């Protein structure tokens, strides 16, 4: 199983973030886990870490949908506009509770690599890494 240099968790629930960070760290799936509590924080983190080429620029973003300030959809729209050199290498996966069918349909149109239902488990992480980073 590959170990990713950096993973960004975007979720407004600190418990979720804590548990997911713990899981990834324990599995040894990521060297560094960044956390953003909404879409805007996530954008700021990306600008800080990815404009210049750094090791902290996340390879994987696990993105929640419903968030205050800027939700998942809003983030994805703004993310598409960012002049990021490594953008092509970043994998964005939606991690969410069951989706409203209308939102789900819209998500299919967005530049995301995959979709996972909460909760995040070891099995799901394994599969994800195998799929996108093997």
């Amino acid at each position, binding site marked *: 199983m590959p170990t990713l240099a950096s993973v960004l968790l975007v979720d407004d629930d600190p418990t979720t973030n804590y548990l997911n960070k713990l899981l990834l760290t324990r599995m040894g799936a990521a060297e560094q886990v960044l956390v953003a509590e909404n879409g805007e924080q996530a954008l700021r983190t990306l600008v800080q870490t990815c404009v210049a080429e750094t090791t902290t620029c996340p390879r994987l973003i696990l993105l929640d949908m*419903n968030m205050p300030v800027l939700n998942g959809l809003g983030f994805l729209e703004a993310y598409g506009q960012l002049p990021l050199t490594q953008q092509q290498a970043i994998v964005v996966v939606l991690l969410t509770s069951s989706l409203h*069918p209308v939102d789900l349909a819209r998500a299919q149109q967005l530049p995301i690599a995959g979709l996972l239902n909460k*909760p995040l488990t070891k099995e799901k992480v394994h599969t994800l890494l195998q799929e996108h980073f093997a």
Partner: protein
Amino acid sequence: MAAFASPESAPSFEPDSLLQDLLAVSLTAVNLLRPCYSPTGELDDFAPAYFNPAAQRMTGLPERPVGTARTLFPDIFTNGIFAFYRQVFETSEPGQLERYYQADGLDNYFYIAARRSGQWLWVSFTDTADQPRTAAENALRERQAREQQARAEAEQQRGELAYVVARAPVAMGLLRGPNFLIELANTRMSQLWGRPAEQLLGQPHFEALPDLAGQGFEQVLRDVLTTGQAYEQWEQPILIAQPEQRYKAYLNITYLPEYDASGQPTGILIYASDVTEQVLARQQVQLLNEELAALNEELRASNEEYQQANAALSLSQQQLEAARAEAEAERQRLYQVLMRMPANIALLRGPEHVYDLVNAEYERLFPARTTLGRTIREVIPDIEGQGFYELLDRVYETGEPFYEAETEAWADFAGTGEPQRRYYRTTFEPIRNAQGQVTEVLNVAVDITAQVEARQQVEQLNQELGTRVQARTQETLALQADLLAAAQRQVQVRESFYQVFEQTPAAVSLLRGPTYRFEYVNPVYQQVFAGRQLVGHDFAEVLPDAAAQGYLAMLEGVYHTGETFFGAEVPFVSEQPDSPPHTVYFNFTYQAYREHGEIVGISTFALDVTEQVLARQERETQRQQLEQLFMQAPTPIVILDGPDLVFQLVNPAYQRIFPGRALADKPLLEALPELVGTPIPDLFQRVYQTGEPITVQELPLWMARYEGHAPEEIYWTFTYQARRTTHGVIDGVRVFAHDVTEQVRTRQRVHQLNEELDEANQELAAINEELMAANEELHESNTQLSRTNVDLDTFVYTASHDLKAPITNIESIVLALRDTLPASVQQDEVVAHLLDLLNQTVGRFQLTIGQLTDISRLQLVHAGPAEPVVLAPVVENVRLDLAPAIGAADVRLSVEVAPDLVVSFSPANLRSIVYNLLSNAVKYRAADRPAQVRVHAEQTASEVVLTVQDNGLGMSEVQQRQLFGLFQRLHTHVEGTGVGLYITKRLIENAGGRIAVQSQPGAGTTFTVTFPA
């Protein structure tokens, strides 16, 4: 002017004594004239030389009057008599002339004979006034004068009636005989028929009016004529081919039979009034009615509740229609009965003739007796022995009707205990049932007692009168007979005598001996029996026809008694060998003549009065017809005479307006003082003053429609017309009425119906408005509910989502704890149990949230589209899915689903339903008995019915009510969230199906699902 040969200078006439005697005894007037010539030699006058006593009597002139014809009889120069004299004198050809002479103090129908004798002209003339003025004759003449006066009055009445008939606003006509010859048609009838009366009179009805043929009138007329029954037609449509166009009219027509002297119907009186305008007006109203009904229909469509209300209304409308139709039918029936009302009518049932029905008139026959339900023998025992019972028996047994024009009946009609005699026109008519058996006899009797008694009185009176006249004339004429006998004895002057009678216009004969041999007949007499050799033969031999008609008997009477016989207008049917028999009438005398005091023969003088008799008979017939028309007219007619408006003629229909009141010969306001102060007298005065006719429309009067019947309200339209003399001066007022009750009633009913419809429409419109308001309110609350539903959907989704996040976290926390806790701790019994409980709790929580999410999905996305699904494989799949549970519980499952049964449904939803029901049946089994589940499906006419039946726990009624509710869990011992049946029901009902449950606690449960085809 004056003749140059003046009378004074002319030779005077000196008859010898014999001739003088003859002339003196002659019954006819004889005078002798001498011609007078003008200066140009033209015969231009006659001077009288001698008038015999008869001529003196008739002209009132002396034996030798002074003057000439120009001064004595100036009128003969204009009426042709002078020309006749001159012609006879100049041609020497004897001649005869008949003239009605009404001048110079004469007023009669004259027979004049003239004959030239040398330079003289004999003139003989006679008339009925030429009789000796004996007392008996004066009596006769007085009778004649009275008769003439009566005739004149009758003539005046005839004229009056003719005017009434001609001008009546009701059309009247009289048809006669099997070809329906039009004998009478008044102005109104000619207008209706669309042709002038001259083209119609005397013509067969359907030849003169071919356009009326084939409209059903033939049968009606034939029926009236054959049955003698009156007939009425109401609002009869009639097509008349007018010169310009066909004209359709509606008429009320009454047909009344007219009877001849023997009681046979030979004619039909027709009264018709034009009700076209009323009918058309009513049809318009009905059209309006229909439009209203159509409007109703439109309103009816506007919504469901309105429709119901309208249906109810429509029903009541139909009821109204039906009630009206029924009322109409009843009216017809009643009318038929009323038609017969003036007669006594009874219906007698069975062989014992039990009174089943009697009309009012009949009841009045025996006011003190009870009729209904009793036999005729019980009710009228007093007619026993008069043959009526036997008659009834015969009609009942043979079924042959009985008619009699004049039936005499003795019974105690007056209730005095003594029988009285009455006369009836009687009918016994068998009434048959559907099988043709006689069950009843209808007795109709018209009381004609008054007519019969009047006729009998007249007959008696006539006989008495005849006897008296005979007696009084007897003696006075003896003298005349003696004179005649004296003349007869003058054999030597017989030839002269004959010569005079040769000229007389009367038929003269002398009969001799007991065989009445003709000794002499004058030319007039011979002419009556032209072609027969009379003189020298016996009366009975050569005149067998006259002998057979009673003339021989008259001769016998005179010969044996010596009493002169006077015949007035005696008919004689002449039977000549080569011409058809024809009737002539004579005024004549048979006088005995005597020789030596012994009767040896009879002289006869006869004047032909056929023309007068026929003319009078014709006028009398006409008068009777007109009077009948007038009297039988079903509508009131009255004539008021002079400025005081004296009732002159009142027909029975008018009299019924004022029953029991004497009107005739009284002034209007004296006869009817209650009219003072009403507008009626002014109305009469206006007509009298201005001559303008006035019509009063639809005047309601409380009166009997038929004689002797209960009064009812009848609407009449009255027409008031001025009556004028021949000089155009108004001298009276005529009033006609016609019955418009039915039209008024119908219009009133239609108006009422219209108002009711209007009212109903308004009510419906109000209901409609209310319903529309209610609809709007419903629509509003619907919108609100829809909004609330959307809000709820959103809430459910949001809630499920928001709940999901924390439970997911708890699940993750448990996982993290298991990873984190050292194995020793995890193996601690309590910790391990707590972790398990935590896992279970999280699991159930997630199931609940999952189903909640399903519900919200159900709301948002309707089940997938329906498609044909074969049911059997779906059931089989579910069975396989549930196989572990079925096996574990040892459930005996039977599936009865035809392999080709197809249901139209969303496949996923169908599976969900089957799964739910089958898993429930397994889950809620009873622990104390082997579980049995039966799945059955069948195709009905338009649906597929699926039943899932178990023998499980069952449910109480309260439980059954909660069954399909959300989050209803009826049992706690099994897994479940209480959402499954709610969703199942929603899925079925959303697709237009139904689900029902039948259950008994401790026995089992059956779910029945009906899928739409």
